[in-house]
C-alpha cells in the first residue's frame, strides 16, 4: 500500500520542476493537511516521492506592478493575517479563515487548496471573485493562467507534467466582499454550498461585481450573467435588480445529490447565500 520511498528538498523552482517531470510518482507536499490524510489511508498507491516545497521561497506576500502577489506556500493563517490582503480582499480573508480549523489553517497552504482542485475548496471562490490568476512554473518556463480557466474538473487542473503553482496574482484594488459557506458545523465542515462576492468602484455610481460559487458544479464557477447585470446598473442595486441577479445566480448552479447535501437544497441555498453576501457588502 505504501510505496513512498523518498522525500526531495529542492532549493530552486527548476530543480523542483525537474524532479516532478522525471519522476512520475512524485507529488508536491506543502502543508500536507490533505495529502497526508490520503497517503495514510492508502489512497496514493502510485506516489513514490514527496517533493517538499518549503525551500522554494514561496512564502512571500508582496505588492508589485499593480498586483498583490501571494506565494503559493503561504498558509491560510498567513494570508488571512497579512495587511496587504486585509486592506484589500475581505472575501479572501473570510474564505481562508473558514478552511478547516485553527490547526489546519496554520499548515494548509493556498497553493495546496487550489492545486487540489476540489469544487468545495474554500479559498477558491474568493480568489475567483478577485480576478486572481495563477503564476505557473514548469519545464518550459513561466506562464499565467486566469484562475477561472485553471480547473478542468474535480481534482483536475491545467497543470502540465512538471508544472507547479508559484504564486497567485491579484489586481491591486480595494474591494468590498464576503465569503459565505454552508456546512454541517462551523469548523472543519466541507462546504455544501459556498459563495464569494467581491466588488469595487468602477466609475461614479457603478461597481464591478464578481460572484463565484463553490460545491455546486464540478469546479468552482463564476456567475457571469448576474455579474454583468449588477455591474452595468447603478450601485447600490435596486430591489428588483437584486431579485433578477439572484435568479441568475441560482440558474448558474448545477449541484448534485451527495452525502453532504441534496441538489434542490443546494440550489435554493445558493440564492440565500447570494442575498446574505450582498447585504453584508452593502452595509
Amino acid at each position, binding site marked *: 500500500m505504501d510505496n513512498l520511498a523518498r522525500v526531495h528538498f529542492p532549493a530552486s523552482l527548476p530543480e523542483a520542476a525537474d524532479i516532478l517531470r522525471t519522476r512520475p510518482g512524485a507529488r508536491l507536499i506543502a502543508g*500536507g493537511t490533505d495529502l497526508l490524510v490520503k497517503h495514510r489511508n492508502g489512497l496514493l498507491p502510485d506516489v513514490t516521492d514527496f517533493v517538499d516545497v518549503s525551500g522554494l521561497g514561496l512564502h512571500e506576500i508582496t505588492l508589485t506592478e499593480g498586483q498583490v502577489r501571494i506565494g503559493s506556500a503561504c498558509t491560510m*493563517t498567513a494570508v488571512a493575517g497579512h495587511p496587504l490582503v486585509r486592506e484589500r480582499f475581505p472575501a479572501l480573508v473570510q474564505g481562508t479563515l473558514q478552511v478547516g480549523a*485553527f490547526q489546519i489553517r*496554520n499548515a494548509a497552504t493556498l497553493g495546496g487548496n487550489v492545486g487540489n482542485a476540489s469544487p468545495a475548496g474554500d479559498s477558491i471562490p474568493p480568489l475567483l471573485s478577485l480576478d486572481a490568476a495563477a503564476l505557473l512554473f514548469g519545464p518550459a518556463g513561466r506562464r499565467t493562467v486566469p484562475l477561472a480557466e485553471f480547473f478542468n474538473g474535480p481534482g483536475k487542473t491545467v497543470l502540465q507534467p512538471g508544472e507547479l503553482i508559484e504564486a497567485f496574482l491579484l489586481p491591486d484594488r480595494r474591494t468590498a466582499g464576503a465569503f459565505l459557506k454552508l456546512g454541517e458545523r*462551523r469548523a472543519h465542515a466541507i462546504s455544501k454550498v459556498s459563495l464569494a462576492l467581491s466588488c469595487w468602484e468602477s466609475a461614479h455610481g457603478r461597481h464591478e461585481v464578481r460572484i463565484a460559487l463553490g460545491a455546486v458544479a464540478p469546479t468552482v464557477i463564476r456567475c457571469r450573467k448576474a455579474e454583468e447585470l449588477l455591474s452595468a446598473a447603478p450601485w447600490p442595486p435596486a430591489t428588483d435588480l437584486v431579485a433578477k441577479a439572484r435568479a441568475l445566480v441560482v440558474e448558474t448552479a448545477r449541484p448534485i445529490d451527495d452525502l453532504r447535501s441534496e441538489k434542490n437544497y443546494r440550489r435554493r441555498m445558493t440564492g440565500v447565500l447570494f442575498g446574505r453576501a450582498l447585504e453584508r457588502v452593502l452595509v
Partner: protein
Amino acid sequence: MPTPELIPIRFALNGRTVEARVPPGMTLLELVRREFRLTAAKEGCGKGECGACTLLLNDQPVNSCLKLAATLRPSDRVVTLEGLADDPLMQTLQKSYVAEGAVQCGFCIPGMVMSSYHLLRIHPQPTAEQIKEFHSGNICRCTGYAKIEQAVAKAAVKAAATRAPTRDPGQAAASKKKEAR
C-alpha cells in the same frame, strides 16, 4: 517496493536541539511518541480533525499527525505538552481543568490544553467567542465543552490575577514579536 531511505533531520524539541533519522512517511506525532517517548499528544482521528495530536510548531498549534517529520528544518521549534510541564500558565490551566471537572475520559485533553495555552498566550483575557474559536479544532467525544470553556475562562482570570510569567523554551524573541503585533 523500493527500500525507503532514512532522512536525517535536526530541529528544536522543547528548547533542545535534537536529531533523528526518519522514514519518508513518518509524521511528527509518530516521531515524538516513538523516538522521543513524549506520549502526551495522541492520535485520535489521524485526519487533522480531532486535535488530540496538537503541538506547537514555531508557536502555532498544528495537527502533528499531518506534519511530515522529514520536512522539519533546523530552524523549526516544536513544543509538546511535556515541554510546558513547568510553565506557570500551563500549570494554571491544568489546575483549572481539574477544578472545573473539565476532564472526563481524558483522551482529548493533552491537545485541548495546547489550544488553551495558545489562546491565553495571544489573548490573555479572551472573550467567550474567542475561547470557542480557538478550541474549534479540538473535539471532545465526551462532549464536555461547557466545562472546558469555563476552565479556560477561569484560568485566564487566575493567570491575570497572579500575573503568571510564562516560560517559553527557546522562543522568547519570537513570542515578543507576536505580542507586539
